[in-house]
Structure formats: C-alpha cells, structure tokens
C-alpha cells in the first residue's frame, strides 16, 4: 500500500532532490541561496540540503545567472548532473543565452557526441505582490527551443516524480515551479517513484468540455469544474505537466470526446503556450471540434503589484466559467 504524506510542492521538490542526491553522487545543486538562504522555511525547495550534503554539493553562488547556467552546461557535459536554480522566472532572460544557445544546441552541434543532462529549476508565478520583474511566466519561451524539455508540475506528487525523472533524463530540462503551490500541502507518496516526462495527466474526467492547463492554474480549473458541474457541464481537465515534449495524444483524445476546448494559463495571452495547444487541436482534431476555442489567460500586461490589480491579472474560476458558458 502506498504510504502518503502531506507536502507542499517545495517540500516535494526537496524530497526529490534529497533522494536523487543520495542515490547519485554526480548530482549537485547550485544557485543563489540554495544553501544559506534568507528563507528559513521548510516549505522551500532547498531547505536543509546544505546540512545533509555539505557545501561541496550544495553550492551557493554569486548573483550571476549566466555563470550559474554555464556552470550547469559545462559540468553536465563533464559527467555531472547539475540542478541549478534561477530564483525568479524573469531572470531566465539573464541565463537564456547559456540555456538556449548552449544547453539546448551544443549536443546537436556536436552531432550527438556531447550530452548535457542538466536541470534548471525556476521559481515562477504571480500572486505575491512583487510585480512584473519577479512575476513573469516565460514557459512559452523555453517550449519554443528545440533541445530543451519543459516541465511544469501542478501538484506536489507530480513535482516529486517529475523532478526525479528530469534529473535522470539525458537532456537539459527546464523545471518550472509555481511558488503559490509551495504552501498548499497535498498528498505525496512517501516511497520513491518516477513520473515520466512527456505524459499529460487527466486530473478530472468529463465528457462535455476539455480544459488544458498546467502549473498554478490546475486549482482554478478544478474549482471551476465543480461550478460547471453544478450546471450540468462536465469538464475534463488535462494537466500537461510537460510542455515539451508535448503529449498531443492525451489532448486530442480528450477533445475527440468532448468537442470543446479551453486552454487556461497564467502567462500573458499573446504568444502564450495556449496557441500551441490551439494549433495542435486545429490541425489534428479539427473534425471533433463543436465550438470555438476559448483561452483563459493573463491579459497582455506586465504583472502589476497592487493587490486588486494583481488579482485582476490572475485568471480565476469565474473567468473560466464565463468562458465555458460562451461556448455552450
């Protein structure tokens, strides 16, 4: 029988890191404050790892995102399994040359000779009042870069299994954690398990409407699905978990069943990854579609700091219910 524990996503990430570091001496972590941190909070992902693994494997770095990412690229090629952290998603920009032009491409450029098994963990998400230089969801950037895998768990249990798979994967993986999920404990199996990359998960079954979502928005989808159910609309929720490679099959099967699609994400609308889902379905599932698409996303603005403005930014249950009703 599976023994369950209740963990926030940060704790689940922590457990995955701990298990992998115990298992494989090649795994090390690096980043700004991954060892000694301004947060003394067991809900945070790297809490306590310095104590267990020491400063040789838990490397606090200067505030130097390009060097952090480059460290991962070089060390991965040399046979280690780096897991580096970018503190907030907007700072992906500063690491993006190393990640996009190097981690993602150098294997290809070598004709398959060199490999770069590394993980870049990124904290993301709006909702903590810090404004647009801290909150800016850029998963669509990473998913547009061949050579990268992009993972965005929506539950602590998935986070644990997906991170362990990411660390064992032979490719560079961008692993994006929504900070809002750090503080909501949910059941996580105690034992070791791997959740495969590239497989979406149906978090709720339904026959009238498909909602494709990921990361912090799963909760919104689940809440709205309850509301819709009361009105007789049964929502199927496809949690992507991995954006690249994309599990088209699960999406298409669901749309084949329901005929209706909403994509829900927290990132801004234009150019967001909802477009990719739309295109895939319009290409390969067109005949099943009974109604127009709806995208429920952040509006095309930077994330504002003020609470009412930030709340306005973040899509919620009502937005999703409203969108659903438009297509019935």
């Amino acid at each position, binding site marked *: 029988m599976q023994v369950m524990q209740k963990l926030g996503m940060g704790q689940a990430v922590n457990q995955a890191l701990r298990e992998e570091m115990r298992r494989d001496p090649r795994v090390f972590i690096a980043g700004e404050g991954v060892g000694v941190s301004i947060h003394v909070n067991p809900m945070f992902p790297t809490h306590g790892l310095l104590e267990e693994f020491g400063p040789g494997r838990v490397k606090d770095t*200067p505030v130097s995102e390009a060097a952090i990412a480059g460290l991962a690229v070089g060390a991965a090629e040399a046979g280690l399994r780096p897991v580096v952290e970018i503190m907030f998603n907007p700072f992906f920009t500063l690491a993006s040359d190393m990640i996009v032009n190097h981690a993602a491409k150098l294997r290809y450029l070598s004709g398959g000779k060199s490999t770069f098994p590394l993980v870049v963990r990124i904290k993301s998400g709006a909702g903590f009042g810090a404004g647009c230089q801290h909150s800016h969801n850029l998963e669509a950037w990473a998913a547009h870069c061949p050579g990268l895998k992009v993972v965005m768990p929506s539950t602590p249990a998935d986070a644990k299994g997906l991170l362990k798979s990411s660390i064992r994967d032979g490719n560079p993986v961008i692993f994006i954690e929504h900070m809002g999920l750090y503080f909501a404990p949910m059941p996580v199996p105690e034992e070791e398990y791997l959740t495969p990359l590239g497989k979406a998960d149906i978090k709720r079954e339904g026959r009238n409407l498909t909602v494709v979502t990921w990361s912090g928005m799963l909760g919104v989808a689940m809440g709205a699905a309850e509301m819709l159910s009361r009105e007789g609309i049964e929502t199927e929720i496809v949690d992507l978990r991995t954006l690249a490679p994309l599990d088209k099959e699960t999406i298409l099967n669901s749309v084949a069943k329901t005929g209706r699609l909403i994509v829900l994400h927290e990132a801004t609308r234009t150019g967001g990854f909802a477009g990719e889902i739309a295109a895939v379905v319009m290409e390969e599932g067109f005949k099943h579609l009974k109604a127009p698409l709806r995208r429920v996303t952040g509006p095309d603005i*930077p994330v504002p700091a003020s609470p009412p403005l930030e709340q*306005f930014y973040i899509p919620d249950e009502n937005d999703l219910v409203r969108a659903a009703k438009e297509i019935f």
Partner: protein
Amino acid sequence: MEVPANKKIEMLETMILSRKFSDSLAELCRIERKIPGMMILSTGQEAVGSGVCAALEPEDVIITNHRSHNHLLAKGADPRELMAEIFCKKTGCNKGKSGTLHLAVPEVNAPCTTTVVGGTLPIAVGQAFAQQYKNEPRVTVCFFGDGAANEGSFHEALNLAALWQLPVIFGCENNLYAGAQRYEEHTRVQDMARRAEAYDMPGVTVDGNYAPEVYRAAREARQLALEGRGPTLIECKTYRCRGHGESDPQHYQPGDEIRAWQEKCPIPRLGDELVSLGVIPSERIKEMESLAEKIVENAVRFAEESPYPEPHEALEDVYV
C-alpha cells in the same frame, strides 16, 4: 574638499527622514501586514543615498534598485506618494503598479528603478550617454549593491562608460551581504572599487557610514564627469543592519557583527559631530526627528486613507 555645513545638515535631515520612514515600514509590515510584497529597507545604510544625493543638483539623474527608499527620499521624492505606492494605492507615485520595489519618480529625476540585480547599471549608462549627447551639464548616478557587482551587466556597463567617458557615477553600496551570502562568499576581491582599474576608471572606497565622506567622493566624481573626464566607481562600505527583507531572520549574520555596525550608525555619527562642533544645537536634531516623524505619519495616513486602484486600471500604461 571641505564639506559645507549646510550640506551636512541636509544629509542629516534626509538620513533622519529615511530612518523614520524605514522604521515605520518595518513596524507596519511586521505588526499590521498592511503592505503587500517584500519589504526591503536600508536601515543603517542611509549615509550612502543621503551623501550621494546631497552632492547632486536637482537636474542630475539617479537610477536605483530594490533598496531604493533612502535614495529616493534623499533625492527629494515626495514621502506621501512614495508611501502610498508602497501601500500599492492609486495615489502612489506609480498608481500601484510598482509597489515598493520599482518606485519611479521622474519629477525628481529618478525615472526608473529596477529590482533586477545589476539592471541599474546599463540604464544609467544610457542616461549618461543622453546627457553627453545633449551636452548637458548633468550627471547620472547609479546605485547598486555588492552582489550586483558580480552580474555581467556591471562589467559591460563600466567598460562602455569608461570607453565613452560618460558622466556617470557608479555608486556601489557594499553592505557586506547579497541576500544570505556574505561578501567573501560571493567574491574574492578585497574592495569592489578595485574593479574600476579593469576599465581604466578611477575607483575609490569610502566609509559608507559617514555621509560627508560619501558626499565628498560623489562631489569629486561629479566634477570629473562634468569636465568630460568620465565615470567613477565609488564603493561605500556599509552594513545591512536588518535582514535582506523584513521576513529574513538574519540567522546568518553574526550578532556581534550587527551590534558592532549598529554602533557605527551614520545618524548619531553625523549628528553628534555637528552638535559637538557647534554647527547646530542638539535641539535642532530633536526638531528634525519630530519633523520627520510628522512627515512619515502624514504619509502613512495618506497611504492608508487612499483607495486602491480599480482593477481595470491594470490595463493602462502598457503602451504610450
């Protein structure tokens, strides 16, 4: 260079105002949880912003970072509008879009504040370039921390500024910590000012807890810049007396280190000097304190009483 008495008084005033402002915020966010987001204060570091800004003229520009309150107050920003913005209110200087972290006050030539560590430097170079291009007798000051000095942007900005001999002053506020990393855990170079040599630029290290010394260095750098002799890197050695932000328990900062630096607090240091030299009577300091207190109370009241922006206002101000 002699530091004029009126400048010393000005610095004391803005330091006292900053401290009251910070203390009030520390209290507000601890007890009352009235303020969204992170709360990053400069308690103990006031001599830096106050010293530098006293050396500037109103038309000079500052570009500042996440630890901006002291810089902006010293540059003359309206405490009410700052406080309202920190409260994320509609009446804030940025209509609640910025909050505490990116306060922009173009009215006092503090047109952009960025919380991306190292972000201030290339922008300051651009501002200084415009000043040179327009042949204006102005300079730009850029504030950043010791941690920021390890970002690539530091390097690119200093190299370009030196190459083009731009009128910019790089003000490194070395408070001995970058987040939880102590100085020697993020770099090996003894003094950040040494890095100026890498660009053939003058670099000076000053006591960042003594405002007149900061003032003097900034004033000299400003003079050089105006003469077309390019940028200067000024490292102000100071200390972060509180945590990185108010939620940081400072567990990694040794208690006696904190206490030793508290003893070197820049406010009594300058205040006592001015009194003992007879520049001002000690009552004058009391007056400054009660004035600052009033200003801050007033600002807090204004902020508290102000409304939040309407949700749909989030859609404004993206494009011209």
